């Protein structure tokens, strides 16, 4: 069993003032139904504290099964956490239907697959006007004007050309822009983008990433960018948060984390990522696959794969410690009393 008795460290970009959205100690255990493991739980997300200030992009990076998508679903309240709480502008969010609707108007999710997240039998106009009706009670000509304005905000111009089209008439990138525009319709403070470009053609991915960047700048949105592509996280994000087996193992300024990774898992991810500028053959330090989250390894969940594991790593979960500046990592190598003579490179 992993102990999480350490003082709470809040990950995410450091900005003065109250963050738009903050998660404290967010934990999700999915019960296992049926089969031999009935009655046990999948520890999908464990004690995640994350602050998303306005006007910032936070990237969550990890492999499949790291809990990054569960985290984004917890943040949208599509699933209820096992423990922990959410604060919107510093206020705990309520559970009433009214509070939920208010929350849905503030925090919006953009899904991975724009081919299935838009309804094939409805026009773009319908997709954009529905949230305007439901959340803002708009009617008549105002609706059309606002829908057109939304399309312009995601650079689908002239808007009239797109309003009466159906999803199948648009390219993948255009569809994803419509999905983002629909998210903007409710005037959210927070946009949660779960792998928003991984289904898109390579040449149009950057266009959508640049759009997210503009929305951060122009509309001061707090954006969570969930991805498996660490290079795009470095490109877009202010802060990179690295997840492994349901826990945050490292976070810090995007360039710093990717240039000087402190956690052995971050180093492994970076060494495995495609890099045309690489000169030497890759040396993977930490082969294998992420563990089962039903019965995760004791101590540090990465220790069975870690090339630098020490005896303590198998016994006690490492506390989150500062590595350099705003960069923090949960690794015993950063503990001056435990680390071997040399500091990690």
């Amino acid at each position: 069993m992993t102990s999480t008795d350490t003082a709470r460290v809040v990950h995410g970009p450091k900005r003065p003032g109250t963050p738009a959205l903050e998660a404290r100690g967010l934990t999700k255990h999915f019960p296992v139904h049926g089969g031999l493991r009935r009655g046990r739980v999948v520890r999908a997300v464990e004690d995640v504290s994350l602050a998303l200030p306005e006007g910032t992009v936070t990237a969550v990076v990890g492999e499949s099964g790291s809990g990054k998508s569960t985290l984004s679903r917890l943040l949208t309240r599509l699933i209820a956490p096992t423990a922990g709480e959410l604060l919107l502008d510093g206020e705990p969010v309520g559970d009433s239907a009214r509070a939920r609707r208010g929350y849905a108007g503030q925090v919006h999710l953009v899904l991975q697959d724009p081919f299935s997240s838009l309804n094939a039998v409805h026009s773009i106009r319908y997709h954009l006007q529905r949230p305007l009706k439901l959340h803002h009670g708009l009617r008549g000509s105002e609706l059309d004007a606002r829908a057109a304005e939304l399309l312009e905000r995601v650079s689908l111009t002239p808007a009239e050309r797109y309003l009466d089209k159906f999803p199948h008439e648009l390219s993948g990138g255009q569809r994803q822009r419509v999905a983002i525009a629909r998210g903007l319709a409710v005037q959210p403070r927070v946009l949660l983008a779960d792998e928003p470009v991984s289904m898109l053609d390579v040449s149009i991915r950057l266009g959508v990433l640049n759009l997210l960047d503009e929305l951060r700048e122009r509309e001061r949105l707090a954006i969570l960018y969930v991805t498996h592509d660490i290079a795009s996280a470095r490109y877009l994000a202010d802060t990179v948060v690295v997840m492994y087996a349901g826990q945050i193992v490292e976070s810090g300024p995007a360039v710093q984390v990717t240039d000087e990774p402190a956690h052995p898992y971050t180093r492994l991810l970076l060494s495995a990522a495609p890099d045309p500028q690489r000169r030497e053959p890759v040396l993977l330090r930490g082969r294998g696959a992420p563990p089962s989250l039903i019965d995760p390894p004791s101590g540090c969940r990465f220790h069975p794969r870690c090339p630098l594991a020490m005896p303590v790593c198998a016994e006690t979960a490492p506390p989150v410690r500062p590595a350099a500046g705003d960069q923090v990592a949960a690794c015993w190598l950063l503990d001056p009393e435990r680390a071997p003579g040399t500091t990690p490179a």
Partner: protein
Amino acid sequence: MTGEPVLEVRDLCVDYGVGKGGVRAVTDATLTLRRGEVLGLAGESGSGKSTLAYAVTRLLRAPGVITGGEVRFHGPDGVLDLLEADAATLRRIRWDQISVVFQSAMHALNPVARIDAQLTDALRAHRAQLGPAERRERAVELLRLVGIGEERLRSYPHELSGGMRQRVMIAMALALEPRVVIMDEPTTALDVVTQREILDELMQLKDRLGFAIVFITHDLSLLIELADTIAIMYAGRIVELADAQRLFHSPRHPYTLGLLNSFPALHGERVRMEGIPGAPPALTALPAGCAFHPRCPFALERCAHDVPRLTEPAEPDGAPADRSAACWLHTGGEQVPEPLARVLGSTL
């Protein structure tokens, strides 16, 4: 490292459907694969890269029709035109000489057959002289080759992880020691660490066994690390063909340049990148002239009505090109924009 050709594709054309409803998916593709070489085929969805590979292996299903060209395979008993080959010849060559690793191992493996049955199936068909014990021995050997233990022989596909299933697919493709292995996005569905492990093993196996690989992917940054030669496809045509390092450091086609600018770097200053404006065209509504011209920042007037052929560009330093690009900018007389006129030596 590279030797005589094993597979030569000349002016291959593939249509989907015939008559008025037909579209051309691959136009005049010309490629040479040499022994021990990794040839990368890169392009976006709909660029024809998979269609090209399936046409070459004659695995193309209706409504796909090969409408022209030739595919010469240099086998152990001489040169053979695969497009002319009859069913019996194809059956003999497929898997034995040319094997394929399909995109999704989840769907390519039979879910109700155990791994050993699937691994030995090709041996049973092509190596009739082997007995059951020898086949099993070979299956164990193959699994070991791709880093899987013997105990997995009796597993069903659903009992293996995605990475293991993909390894089994690779083991199957290598079972008969083919000369050519065609890999269609073999690691796209996998996590980066698993992808890297499998690709490392694959490259070691290639060096040891000496087969040639056609590697199809949309991930150009990965391909540059992996491939010896890269062919970039756009809207059914090969638009650039060059050595991987030269393609990366000194692209000649504006589309290649745009693709390279679509992958954020892992190092250095963060700079805003623009990708390529617009979207890839549908094959049913290809622009006239060069299919890339509506998205091309350097388009000339003639690009809108003349289709450029794949030719050797005139190199800025006058050296022999030994590469080709299908772009009017390089046919002489035009001022070539700086990003498309780099010389490999000057950037290193």
